[in-house]
């Protein structure tokens, strides 16, 4: 029983005896949720996490965070179609964060400063894993194997690593010096490369499976698909990918006046742009699908990267959307033109989409060359025993091939996706699965947390601010192989870090600490930086929910108190 004080005064600190936490029926809790950019990245990058460092101008930590998932940011920052930006919550407020520019900037900074990859030395007795193919999937897998403490050995048919990065992506998109520098640095992290050793010719699959703890196959798609129009093929048929590779290697193409490329993927677009640069005056692309960006549904939109399609248009490539080739017009065995017809995917009586040609819309396009760019399949050499006549090597999400122990597949050879970033993701996931297999652990499980919704972001705390405009070489100057997108500078990149909503993750803004009427949020450190920098003092938290509502990032959930 307290004794009366003179004139009933009271002294500081005495209110702490009264625990208002008893009033609570809901408690605030910190709940991390992946940002949409993270959930959308095929390579598994957590852009939100590295943007946090970027905002603080801590570029090296940002890069180290980034390469925790993707070891090739200078490359993917240039060639990825960045689904992260489509998913970015900021896109619903003003404009999405220019994530690919940040990624690229960090990759370039790492090269310029020669920051070593965050890889620990592999133990002497580490298990060895064979990786077939030094493309993005194979190299990503090798890198993550290293990070898992395993020893990768990469077999590559060609004399240099890179796969289609080197053979099929033109330098105006991916400068050779960037490619060389990033790959060289990555290999230097401890990846043994057996260049010039081709599967089937120099080394047998069975041998690899016998000698190594696991085998990761990432051979890519090297064989053009069969192509004909009504059973006819021109005598001087060039497959698109072959032409592209040829130009990349020798820098020359035949002296054509006008060319029609049939296809809608990146190969078709790259080839069209290469031909324009090589001086072909008229380059056409004939696509079943729509040019991106006009509201067509994704399944009816050209699969090529939209940005590349638009740059191709800028450069004078003519794209005929929703068209099919109905007939080849031959003079003898030589092509002199194609007959196109309007077609569209429409739901049929069975409810499924069918491509329907519209009679009466036929049109003749006079060209002196038709080039199919309709895709490739796996080159069967050395893989006959497992390919079984298919064009692809199907695998589950973790790369397990057909349930066969110790055999994993990634990259384009899987046949279910075809971008560089997806290939990087394949390599990373397979490495995780391999590491668990080697350690005798159960296969990895999908995390499966829903990304945080836009509605959970308190946008009041973010000022409207435009995304920086990238500098691009004007179309009339795009005559050689110089890179045409020039990226962002450091200040612009930091600005993007500031624009980031930090979806689902604490950004240490102090809102909860500042706005709690009960001082029931305590700061862990003097200078907060994000993460677990605040704790709830449940002795006093009354559960009003103010902190959760005012958290800009949706990092605080109100959870019912159990009785």
């Amino acid at each position: 029983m307290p004794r009366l004080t003179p004139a009933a005064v009271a002294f500081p600190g005495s209110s702490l005896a009264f625990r208002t936490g008893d009033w609570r029926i809901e408690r605030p809790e910190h709940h991390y949720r992946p940002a949409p950019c993270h959930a959308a990245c095929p390579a598994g990058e957590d852009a939100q996490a590295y943007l946090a460092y970027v905002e603080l101008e801590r570029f090296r930590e940002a890069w180290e965070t980034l390469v925790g998932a993707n070891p090739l940011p200078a490359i993917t920052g240039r060639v990825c179609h960045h689904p992260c930006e489509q998913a970015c919550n900021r896109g619903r407020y003003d404009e999405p964060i220019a994530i690919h520019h940040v990624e690229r900037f960090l990759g370039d900074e790492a090269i310029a400063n020669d920051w070593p990859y965050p890889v620990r030395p592999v133990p002497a007795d580490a298990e060895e894993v064979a990786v077939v193919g030094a493309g993005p999937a194979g190299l990503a897998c090798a890198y993550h194997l290293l990070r898992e403490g395993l020893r990768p050995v990469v077999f590559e048919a060609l004399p240099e690593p890179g796969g289609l990065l080197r053979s099929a992506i033109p330098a105006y998109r991916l400068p050779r010096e960037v490619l060389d520098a990033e790959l060289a640095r990555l290999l230097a992290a401890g990846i043994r490369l057996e260049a010039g050793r081709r599967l089937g010719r120099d080394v047998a699959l069975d041998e690899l499976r016998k000698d190594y703890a696991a085998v990761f196959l990432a051979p890519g798609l090297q064989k053009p698909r069969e192509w004909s129009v009504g059973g006819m093929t021109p005598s001087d048929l060039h497959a698109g990918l072959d032409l592209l590779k040829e130009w990349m290697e020798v820098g020359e193409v035949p002296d054509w006046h006008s060319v029609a490329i049939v296809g809608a993927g990146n190969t078709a677009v790259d080839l069209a742009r290469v031909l324009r640069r090589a001086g072909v005056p008229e380059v056409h692309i004939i696509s079943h699908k729509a040019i991106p960006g006009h509201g067509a549904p994704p399944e009816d939109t050209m699969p090529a990267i939209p940005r590349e399609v638009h740059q191709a248009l800028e450069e004078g490539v003519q794209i005929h959307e929703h068209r099919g080739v109905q007939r080849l017009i031959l003079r003898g065995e030589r092509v002199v033109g194609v007959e196109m017809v309007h077609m569209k995917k429409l739901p049929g009586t069975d409810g499924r989409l069918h491509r329907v040609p519209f009679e009466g819309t036929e049109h003749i396009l006079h060209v002196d060359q038709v080039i199919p760019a309709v895709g490739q399949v796996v080159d069967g050499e050395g893989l006959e025993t497992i390919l079984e006549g298919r064009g692809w090597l199907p695998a589950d999400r973790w790369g397990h091939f057909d349930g066969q122990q110790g055999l994993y597949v990634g990259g384009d050879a899987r046949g279910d996706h075809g971008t560089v970033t997806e290939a990087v993701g394949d390599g990373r996931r397979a490495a995780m699965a391999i590491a668990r297999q080697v350690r005798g652990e159960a296969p990895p499980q999908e995390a499966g947390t829903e990304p945080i919704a836009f509605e959970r972001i308190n946008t009041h705390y973010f000022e409207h601010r435009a995304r920086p405009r990238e500098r691009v070489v004007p179309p009339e100057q795009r005559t050689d192989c110089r890179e045409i997108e020039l990226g962002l500078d450091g200040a612009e990149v930091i600005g993007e870090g500031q624009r980031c909503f930090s979806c689902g993750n604490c950004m240490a803004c102090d809102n909860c600490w500042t706005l709690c009427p009960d001082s029931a949020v305590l700061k862990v450190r003097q200078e907060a930086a994000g993460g677990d920098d605040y704790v709830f003092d449940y002795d006093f938290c009354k559960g009003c929910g103010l902190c959760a509502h005012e958290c800009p990032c949706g990092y605080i959930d109100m959870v019912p108190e159990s009785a």
Partner: protein
Amino acid sequence: MTESSHHPLRDHQPRFQGLDSGHRACQGCGEALAARLVTEAAGPDVIVSNATGCLEVFSTPWPETAWRIPWLHSLFENAASVAAGMEAAMRAQGRDTKVLAFAGDGGTFDIGMRGLSGMLERGHDVLYVCFDNEAYMNTGVQRSSSTPHAAMTTTSPPGRERMGKRHLKKDLLAIVAAHHIPYAATASVAYPSDLRKKVRRAMGVEGPSFLLVHSPCPLGWGHDSALTVQVARLAVQTGLFPLVEMERGSVASVMPIRRPCPVTDYLKLQRRFRHLFADHPRAREELEHLQALADHNIEVYRLAGEEPDPLDTEGADTVRRGGMRYA
């Protein structure tokens, strides 16, 4: 008095804690938040004179107190006069400890008006802070002269003949500014950086200064306790509670509203305005009336920002990693 055991981090918070935990304010109390922010910014070298009201009752049920600064509650209507006496004492003793007066809108707009006016007129070096929750909350939500037009309180209930409060919210800032004091301002719990900046500015003023802090009352206004800041923010963004600074009777600065919100955004969150959303011509008329009052504020105080301003309703609270904006 011994302090009971508490979280060890409590003793290492990088801010001055003028109002401690363990006070008995309702969940989401805007006044508790405002008082904490004000005392934080004012610092420890102060003496407080506090009027009767929620703030006094929830902070000091004997034998407890949530205050860590010297604090005295005398009566409902004399916070300003008691503060004036404290200030005179400081002057007599040659000390420069700043005297603060805290009161609610009842203790300021109504019953404490005389004492406030006298204190301002005599030029006491006192910062008077009115925590404006727009009704007599401590006695159970009765209308005050600060209650907004058309708001429901227990003494301005809507009914067949009435649409809530018949009269307008008193323009206290203009009355205070008419005393030609060095500094008078409005602030809101929704804009803590702005609030603290104004407290610091007032602390630096020699002579009387006045701060009217809009402090939502979840219980009295009838909104979810989690929405206290949101409601306060909308009061500002609609123009119903303009944030302005006045020096010697003239407007010195305003917080521009970059994108004014319709008043209904603000009103619909609160039970005290629920009757205005009835399908009735009088209700519609009063909604238009409140919109006109907001528009009038925007016009009179020139709140419509022409271009983005770092200190406008959008820029003022842009978060930064590491919380630097509140430093």
